[in-house]
C-alpha cells in the first residue's frame, strides 16, 4: 500500500484563496460551456442577467450538521451566481431517509441532488434514477478523482450489469472506515495495557485482552467486546463473501466457516462478547456507551456521539487473524447523486462537485462525522482535530487504505444478505455450527442472489 506517494496538503493550503478562486472560475466556465450546449431552455433570466435556477438537495443527518451544510451551500451559491439551492434535511437515520427518497423518486418528485448510501446505490442506479456523471467529470475537469480514496469512488460505479465497475453515478461525500473504539478508563481499571494505535493485534492477543476485560458471571455482565463483523473476519482470513462474478455465495469452505465460527465463539465459547439476544436497539454501541463493553468496532461517524460520553476513549486498529494478513476493514460511505430527471443537470453536478471537492470536504469534515473523501485532507488538522477525541484519529486514515465496502454494495438487490443474516442467527445463538449450516444454506442464498439480480 503505497500511501506515501500521495501529496500531503496542509490545512491552510486547502482553504487557500487562490485555489478557491480557481475553482470558482472552473465551475463557472464548466456551467457556461455545458449551459450553452444544452440550450438553457429551462432558464429564467433574472434582473442581473444571470439564470435563476433552483436546485433541491435532500440529505439526512443530525441537527448540528445542518448549519455546516448551510454554510457549504452558501459558499457554493456565492461562487455560482444564479443558482439557488434548497436544502432539506430528513431527520433521523438513513433507514427513514431511504424510505422517503424512494417514495419521492416513485412519485416523480426526486430531488435534484441527494445523498445515496453506498448500500442503496445499487438498487437506485439499476432503476435508472441516477444521472451518469462520467461525461461531466471528464469534460468539466472540476473533480480530481486522483485526490480521493479509490475504494470510496469505485463503490459508485455501474456498468449496466455489475457494480464497482463502469461509469460513476455518484461522488463520495465521505468514507467511514471502521476501527476498534475502546474504553481507556476501563482498561486502566483492569490494568490492561492500551492497544497499539499503529499495529493491529492478532486475534489471539485480542481474545486474551477481551477476556481480561470481561466479567461474564457478574450480576451486571461486562464484556471485552461487542463482537466482530463476520464479513471482515472472512476477508481477513483470505476468503470472500461472494464469488468474483457475484452469482454465488462464496462462504461454503473451511476458511470462511472457520472465520464465522470464530466470531460466534467470542460469545458462545469465550464469553468475551454478548449473545445476540443481549444486543438490542442500537446494537453493541449501547453496551459500549453504557460501559458494559470495553471495546466496540464501529465507523468514524460515531465519533461526534461518543465525544459526549463521560469516560476516556480512543481508537485502535481492528485485530487481524495474525501478523501475516494485511489489515482489512469494512467502510461505509454516503454518495452524492444527481437525479436522472433533474431539470438542471449541470448545476446539480456542480453542486455535487463542490460538496465532494476540497472546499466542501474541508467544511463537512469539521462535523467530526466523516473521513474526507480527499486523501490529503485526512492527514491535516481539519480531520485529525487535535485536542478532541479520539487521540489517535490517524487510525481511521490508515484503515481507509485497507477498507472495503460492505458486501451488500456488490449487488443491486441485497435481499440475499437478508437471507444470509437471518440464517446466520442460528450460528450466533449456538444452535448450528457454521460448518454444518453453510452447505445447507447455500442454495437459498444463491437463489435469492440470482432471482433478484437477473442482470448478473
Amino acid at each position, binding site marked *: 500500500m503505497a500511501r506515501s506517494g500521495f501529496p500531503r496538503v496542509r490545512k491552510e493550503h486547502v482553504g487557500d484563496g487562490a485555489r478557491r478562486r480557481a475553482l470558482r472560475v472552473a465551475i463557472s466556465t464548466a456551467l457556461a460551456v455545458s449551459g450553452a450546449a444544452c440550450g438553457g431552455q429551462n432558464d429564467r433570466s433574472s434582473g442581473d442577467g444571470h439564470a435563476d435556477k433552483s436546485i433541491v438537495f435532500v440529505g439526512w443527518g443530525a441537527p448540528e450538521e445542518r448549519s455546516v451544510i448551510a454554510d457549504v451551500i452558501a459558499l457554493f451559491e456565492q461562487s455560482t451566481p444564479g443558482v439557488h439551492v434548497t436544502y432539506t434535511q430528513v431527520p433521523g437515520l438513513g433507514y427513514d431517509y*431511504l*424510505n422517503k427518497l*424512494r*417514495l419521492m*423518486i*416513485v412519485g416523480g418528485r426526486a430531488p435534484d441532488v441527494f445523498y445515496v448510501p453506498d448500500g442503496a446505490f445499487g*438498487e437506485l442506479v*439499476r*432503476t*435508472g*434514477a441516477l444521472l451518469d456523471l462520467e461525461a461531466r467529470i471528464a469534460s468539466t475537469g472540476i473533480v480530481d478523482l486522483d485526490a480521493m480514496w479509490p475504494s470510496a469512488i469505485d463503490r459508485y460505479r455501474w456498468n449496466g450489469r455489475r457494480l464497482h465497475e463502469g461509469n460513476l453515478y455518484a461522488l463520495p461525500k465521505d468514507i467511514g472506515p471502521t476501527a476498534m473504539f475502546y474504553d481507556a478508563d476501563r482498561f486502566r481499571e483492569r490494568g490492561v495495557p492500551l492497544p497499539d494505535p499503529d499495529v493491529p493485534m492478532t486475534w489471539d492477543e485480542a481474545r486474551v485482552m477481551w477476556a481480561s476485560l470481561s466479567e461474564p458471571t457478574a450480576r451486571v455482565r461486562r464484556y471485552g467486546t461487542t463482537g466482530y463483523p463476520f464479513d471482515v473476519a472472512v476477508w481477513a482470513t483470505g476468503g470472500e463473501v461472494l464469488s468474483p462474478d457475484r452469482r454465488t455465495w462464496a462462504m461454503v469452505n473451511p476458511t470462511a466457516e472457520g472465520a464465522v465460527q470464530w466470531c460466534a465463539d467470542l460469545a458462545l465459547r469465550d464469553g468475551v462478547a454478548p449473545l*445476540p*439476544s*443481549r*444486543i*438490542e*436497539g442500537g446494537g453493541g454501541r449501547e453496551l459500549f456507551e453504557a460501559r*458494559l463493553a470495553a471495546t466496540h468496532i464501529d465507523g468514524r461517524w460515531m465519533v461526534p456521539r461518543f465525544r459526549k460520553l463521560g469516560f476516556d476513549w480512543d481508537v485502535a486498529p481492528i485485530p487481524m487473524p495474525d501478523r501475516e494478513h494485511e489489515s482489512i476493514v469494512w467502510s461505509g460511505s454516503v454518495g452524492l447523486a444527481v437525479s436522472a430527471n433533474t431539470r438542471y443537470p449541470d448545476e446539480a453536478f456542480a453542486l455535487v462537485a463542490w460538496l465532494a471537492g476540497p472546499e466542501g470536504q474541508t467544511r463537512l469534515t469539521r462535523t467530526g462525522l466523516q473521513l474526507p473523501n480527499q486523501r490529503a485532507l485526512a492527514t491535516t488538522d481539519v480531520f485529525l482535530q487535535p485536542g478532541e477525541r479520539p487521540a489517535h484519529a490517524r487510525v481511521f486514515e490508515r484503515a481507509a487504505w485497507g477498507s472495503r465496502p460492505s458486501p451488500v454494495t456488490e449487488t443491486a*438487490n441485497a*435481499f440475499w444478505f437478508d*437471507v444470509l*443474516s*437471518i*440464517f446466520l*442467527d442460528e450460528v450466533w445463538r449456538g444452535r448450528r455450527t457454521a460448518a454444518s449450516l453453510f452447505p445447507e444454506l447455500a442454495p*437459498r442464498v444463491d*437463489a435469492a442472489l440470482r*432471482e*433478484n439480480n437477473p442482470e448478473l
Partner: protein
Amino acid sequence: MHARRFEREGLWAYAFIAPPVLGAFVFAFLPMAASLFLSFTRYDVLTPPDWIGLDNYRRLFADDFFVGRTALNTVFYLIGVPLGIAAAFAVALLLHRVTALRGLFRTVYFIPSVCSIVAIALVWKWIYRADWGLLNMTLASLGVRDPPAWLNEPILVKPSLVFMGVWTNLGFNVVVYLAALQTVPRFLLEAAELDGASAWRRFWHVTFPAVSPTTFFLAVTSTIGTLQNFDQVYVMTRGGPTYSSATFMLYIYVTGFQYFQMGYASAMAWLLALAVLVVTRAQFVLAARWVHE
C-alpha cells in the same frame, strides 16, 4: 311535470353520491385493477413493467421461503384475536357494574386507542428491554436470574407482541362491548334470576348470546386487522430477530418499497386479499351456529 322533477331530483342525487363513488373508483378500484395487472409483471417502478405471466405467483408458492415464514407468523398473531376479545369482554363486564368513577375508568381504558402506535411502541420497547426494561427489572427484583430478552428471542417475540396488541386494542373493544351490554334485555336477566339461574348461567345463556353480534363484529374486524398487521411489527421489531416476528404485510412492504419489486409485491397483496376473503367468509358461515340476531 312529476317526471321532470323526478329527473331533476335524480340528477341531484347523482351529484351528491358522485364524490364518494368517484373517490372509491379513483383511490380504490383503479389501484386494485392496476395492482392486479402489475402482479403479472416484473415492475421496479421506474422502468415500464414486463409481462411475465404467472411467474410471480409461481415464485410465491414454490420458491419463496419467507412467504411461508411470514404467513405462519401472521397466523400466530391470530391467537391475539380471541384473547383480545375475551379480555375486552371481561373488562367491559366489570366496568358495566362499576358505578363509582365510571367515567374515569372508561377514559383510562380507552386512552391506548387514541395514542399513536409509535408512542405506544416506545413505551412497550422500554417495558420489554432485556437489560433495563421495566418487566425484567421487576423480575430481577423478584429474584429471577437472567430474565429473557423478550423482543430479541425468536421464540418470545411473537407472544410479547400479541400481549402488547391485546393491550393496545383493549380500549376500543371495551367501548364496543359496553355499548352492547346496555342493550341486553333486562327482563330476560330478571326472568332467569327469578327462575333460579346462577350468575354464570345468566351470563352464559342470556348475556353472552345477547352480545354475540358484537362479538362477531369484533372477531371479523380484529381478524382482518391482524391479517393486515404491519405498523405494530414495523415500529417494534422491523420483523426481527431473524424474521421471526415479521408479518406477511411487512414482507409485502419490504418487497415493494425496499426492494422495488412492485410486481411481486402486488401478487403477494392479492394472495393476502384472497386469504382475508376466505377467512372472513368462513367466519360468516360459522356465525350461523353461534351468533343470535
